[in-house]
């Protein structure tokens, strides 16, 4: 197990190294350079005249006159060694300050979404497989189709519209107005939990549709497995048999694709966050892309990807616990 963990940790580090290069490339992509955007943001409206010399100064300050590999090295070593993600010009402060506690809110959203997804997809998928061909199964298939077809942000809009026109209250945001700027307290945490449900359901929408189908398909495969018939031939009661044999195995593909779910959720997060007004990383990422505040964008992209890679790591461990065959392959 120690060797297994060690191998996976190294693998994670290597993946993150390549990811960081890709992220750096993306940060470098926008036309014009960072110094111009920084200066524009800082001095616009102040009436100050910026000369080419000023810009060169700024470039030298930020090290922008250095070749790209050197800049990459400086950037990544700042992150790895000091946890310093650079400066966010749009906010005139460090990226760390901007991101700060939003990481925790993002994680809270990620996990609540995953929980909603699995709480729905696993039992319902199992049920649909057992009742294959029934009206419920058919209805669930239709629901899954809709899950693929109706993007989460449109669902968010629909829900918002319904909540406002029918219930006359908004479902957006992560906090009630009275808690938004209040210091953390138990009441605020409760308020957060209450507000998390709606975004979690919206973000879980398509992930649930996908996983439901995966669970159903695996379950159908497993139901046809001889080991199920063998257990039935031993006189094991039907419900116990279904839970112990096929259902147990139907969870495996879900566990092994946890990182894909995280990927899907983070994909949809920025847009859903925009619609619902959620103050977390996705929304910030979108804003910084629009402002071309690439240090912030790069940092967030890196953090989100790291969370996905880490989820992958977790799912590998869970899978090794769940399925004794996995260890053998690792040898």
């Amino acid at each position, binding site marked *: 197990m120690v060797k297994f963990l060690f191998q996976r940790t190294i693998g994670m580090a290597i*993946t993150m190294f*390549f*990811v960081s290069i*890709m*992220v750096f490339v*993306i940060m470098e*992509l*926008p*036309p014009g350079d960072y110094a111009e955007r920084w200066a524009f943001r800082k001095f616009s409206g102040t009436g100050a005249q910026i000369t080419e010399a000023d810009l060169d100064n700024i470039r030298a300050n930020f090290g922008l006159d250095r070749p790209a590999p050197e800049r990459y090295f400086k950037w990544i070593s700042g992150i790895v060694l000091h946890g310093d993600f650079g400066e966010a010009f749009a906010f005139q402060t460090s990226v760390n300050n901007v991101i700060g506690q939003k990481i925790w809110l993002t994680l809270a959203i990620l996990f609540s979404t995953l929980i909603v997804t699995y709480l729905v997809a696993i039992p319902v998928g199992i049920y649909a497989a057992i009742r294959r061909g029934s009206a419920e199964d058919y209805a669930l298939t239709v629901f899954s*189709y*809709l899950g*693929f*077809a*109706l*993007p989460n*942000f*449109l669902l968010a*809009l629909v829900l*918002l*519209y319904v909540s*406002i*026109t029918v219930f006359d209250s*908004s479902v957006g945001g992560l906090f009630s107005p009275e808690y938004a700027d209040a210091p953390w307290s138990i009441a605020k945490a409760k308020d957060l939990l209450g507000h998390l449900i709606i975004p979690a359901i919206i973000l879980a929408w398509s992930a649930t549709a996908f996983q439901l189908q995966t669970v159903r398909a695996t379950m159908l495969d497993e*139901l*046809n497995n*001889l080991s*199920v*018939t063998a257990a039935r031939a031993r006189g094991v009661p039907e419900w116990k048999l279904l839970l112990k044999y096929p259902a147990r195995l139907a969870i495996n593909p879900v566990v092994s694709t946890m*990182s894909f779910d995280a*990927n899907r959720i*983070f*994909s*949809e*997060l*920025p*847009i859903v966050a*925009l*619609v619902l007004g959620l103050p977390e990383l*996705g929304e910030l*990422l*979108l804003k910084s*892309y*629009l402002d*071309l505040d690439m240090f912030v*964008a790069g940092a*967030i*992209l890196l953090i*989100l*990807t790291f969370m*996905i*890679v880490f989820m*992958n790591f977790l799912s590998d461990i869970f899978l090794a616990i769940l399925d004794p065959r996995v260890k053998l392959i690792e040898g």
Partner: protein
Amino acid sequence: MTPTDLSPKETQAPINQMESEEAQRYYSATQFQLIWWRFRKHRLAQVGAIILITMAVIGLFAEFFGPYTGTTRVSDAVLVRPQAPQFCNDDGCTLRPFIPGVISERNPETLRMETKIDPSVRRDIYFFVEGEEYKLLGKFKTNIHFFGLKEGSIHLFGTDSLGRDIFSRVLLATRTSLSIGIFGVVIAFVLALVIGGVAGYFGGGLDYAIQRLTEIVRVIPVIPLYMGLAAAFPKEWSSTQVYFAMTLVLALVGWPTLARRIRGKLLSLRGEDYVIAANLAGAGPSRIIGRHLLPAFMSYIIVDLVISFPFMLLSETALSFVGLGLRPPTVSWGVLLQDAQTVRAIEQAPWLFIPAIFVVVAVLSFTVLGDGLRDAADPYQVSG
């Protein structure tokens, strides 16, 4: 669950003494005939196909089917409600559809312009009427529209806050969104085919390197990655440039998944007994690829193409929706939905949300079509 002596192989029909004409036909049916017969059993998939073909045709001739060009502003008709054609009013019924007249006046309380229906006025709808001039398929100058009014204006889906006809704009957007999907899928596919094909056919170290690369591209969240690439488009690019850049971006991010599937399929095909048999028959690589791998592969390629579409459509819509994708004056479903970004906008004019229905219907159609095709694509596998 099936006992051993009822395995699929045994229930496959061997030749019998008596052979009906139908059996004869089945026995000498080619792959695509078999696929077609199986596909014909999938009602839902056929409905999907028909919807998509209709959308494609309407999109292709958007200017003809829409009564207005997408940019025409009917200034006194801002945020007009959708108008449904009618056959009957208080004066009785006619065969010719018509829409009631509309009056717009300023609400004395809110001071907003509001539209009201004037049932006393009847505006007949005519077909193949003359209207604004346009170029059909970008080539033939004409001013004939499929339908329209002789006087006044018709807005089946209402108008937006600038007084543009949403129906006409949705048709144009259909063209843009579908075509960007097609180009995106095709380019991604060419990339995936080359890269996945190389990896799957040659295997070894090259395969390993490509595998790792695709893995890395796949861990970065997709839409944020798209956004990062799209954010790099210079502001001064023309809408055409952005359009092409978008297809490229969609393709660049889309290929790893496809390449992985192609590679996997190729690897499994390469190990098939009949491919080994061809090898032992002395067939060279070109014959093996051309006669054995590609034909077996074609149906999967088609299925994969179809199921990749929704992803491209949704990505484009999402990016344009937040302003990182296509930009006005190009209209796509995502661009149109920008007007419906806030609840307030939808509350005021729910019909701005109509393009979303097109997105959903298109994606649904692709999904059911893909499902049907996937079922039909391998006619040699007996389905459980």
